[in-house]
C-alpha cells in the first residue's frame, strides 16, 4: 500500500503551511511551463506524473516541495522514454551550475507555443458520449469497495468500506486513462457523486452534521 493513496484523515500532522504563492522560486515557473509544453504536445498527461508521485518513498513525498517532486518526476520520465539522455541532462545541469547566467540556446520551435496555449483552452475532457447503463440511481446506498492495491488509483483511501448515498449520476461516461496501470478505471464507465456523512467516515469526530462529497468511478462502488 502507498501512503499517497491514504493521505485523507491522517492525524497529528500539525498546522498547514499557508503559503498562498503558486511559485516560490523562479525556476518553478520555468519548470511548470516545460511541463505544460509536455502536456500540450502529447509527451505526457497528468496520470503519468501522478504515477511517479505515488511511486515515491512516502517520506520523500512529505519532505520535498511540490515542484521539486515534479522536477524529479519529469527528468525521470524524459530519460526513461528516451526524449533526452541521462548523460546530456547531467552535463547540461553541470554547465548551468557552473554558469548560472549562461544563455539558453537561441533555437526552438515557436509553433509549439501556440499549440500549448490552444491546449489550455481545449483541455482534455475525459467525457465520452457513449451509451451506458449505470448500475446505481440517485438515492441508492452504496459501499465503496476495498479495491486491491494498485500502482495508481483515484479512490481516496479513507473512503474504502464506507457507505454513502448516490447524489448525482453524471450523464454519459468518463475515461480516466488507458495508458497507466490503474485499479479498474482504464475503461470508460459511469461516475457518481457520492455523499457521505463525515461521522460515518470517522466515528470519533464531533458530530457537526458535516458532509463529504466525492466523485466515484463505478468500478469502486457496490450496492449497500
Amino acid at each position, binding site marked *: 500500500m502507498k501512503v499517497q493513496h491514504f493521505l*485523507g484523515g491522517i492525524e497529528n500532522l*500539525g498546522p498547514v503551511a499557508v503559503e498562498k504563492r503558486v511559485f*516560490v522560486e523562479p525556476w518553478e515557473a520555468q519548470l511548470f511551463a516545460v511541463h505544460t509544453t509536455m*502536456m500540450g504536445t502529447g509527451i505526457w498527461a497528468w496520470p503519468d506524473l501522478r504515477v511517479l508521485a505515488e511511486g515515491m518513498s512516502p517520506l520523500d513525498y512529505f519532505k520535498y*516541495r511540490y515542484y521539486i517532486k515534479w522536477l524529479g518526476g519529469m527528468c525521470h520520465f524524459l530519460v526513461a522514454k528516451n526524449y*533526452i539522455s541521462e548523460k546530456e*541532462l547531467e552535463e547540461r545541469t553541470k554547465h*548551468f551550475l557552473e554558469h548560472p547566467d549562461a544563455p539558453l540556446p537561441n533555437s526552438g520551435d515557436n509553433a509549439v507555443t501556440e499549440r500549448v496555449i490552444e491546449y*489550455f483552452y481545449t483541455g482534455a475532457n475525459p467525457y465520452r458520449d457513449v451509451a451506458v447503463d449505470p448500475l446505481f440511481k440517485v438515492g441508492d446506498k452504496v459501499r465503496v469497495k476495498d479495491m486491491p492495491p494498485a500502482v495508481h488509483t483515484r479512490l481516496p483511501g479513507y473512503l474504502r468500506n464506507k457507505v454513502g448515498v448516490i447524489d448525482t449520476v453524471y450523464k454519459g461516461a468518463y475515461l480516466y486513462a488507458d495508458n497507466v496501470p490503474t485499479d479498474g478505471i482504464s475503461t470508460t464507465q459511469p461516475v457518481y457523486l457520492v455523499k457521505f456523512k463525515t461521522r460515518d467516515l470517522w466515528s470519533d*469526530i464531533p458530530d457537526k452534521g458535516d458532509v463529504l462529497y466525492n466523485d466515484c468511478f463505478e468500478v469502486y462502488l457496490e450496492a449497500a
Partner: protein
Amino acid sequence: MSDDHDHEHHHHLRESESYYAARTKALESLFREKGMIGIDTVDRVIRFFEHEMGPFNGAKVVAKAWTDPAFKARLLADANKAIAELGLKDGIEGENLRVVENTSAAHNVVCCTLCSCWPWPLLGLPPYWFKDPVFRARIVREPRGVLADFGVSLPEDKRIDIWDSSAQVRYFVIPERPAGTEGWPEEKLAALVSTEAMQGLGLVSA
C-alpha cells in the same frame, strides 16, 4: 571517510535551489535544441497564467453571481455554460466545472486528497497550501482546525460540505457576500474576493 564526505557533498548539491534551477535550465535548453519547445514558450505560458487564466476570472464570476440572481441560478445549474456569458473560456482542468454556494446554513471547502485537482479556468494555478500534504490530510477529517490555520472561524452551528475532487469535476465556491456592499459595482466587489475564499478557505469582508 572521504567517500562519505563526497557522498554528502554530492547529496547536498543535489538538494539546493541552485541545483534545481540549473537542472530546470538544462531541461528547457535540451527541449529548445530538440525543437520540443519554442524560444518564447516559457514566457508566454507564465504570462498566460498572470493575465488570462487566473483568480481574477473567478472573482468576476462571484461578483456577477452576487449581483444577478438569475445568473447565479444558471451558474449553479451549468457552470461551463454560464461563465461563457461573461466571455470566459473553460479548458484544461475545468472541462467539467461545478459551482457551489456558501449560505448561512452551510460552508463549502474544496480539496484534492489524491493530488492537486483545481479549477484552472476560474482560478489559474493552485497555490502551495492546496498541494500541501498536511492540508490534504487534515481538511477532510478536521476542517474546522484547518480553517483556523487560515484564520477562519465559522458559527458553531454551521455545517461544512467538503468536496474532495478525484474524478472529472472541478469545484468552485461562491463565498457569502459581505454586509455593507449593497449597490457596489461588480468590479469593486470582485476586488474583495481572494483565491482562498473561492475554495472555501477564506471569507470575504468589505
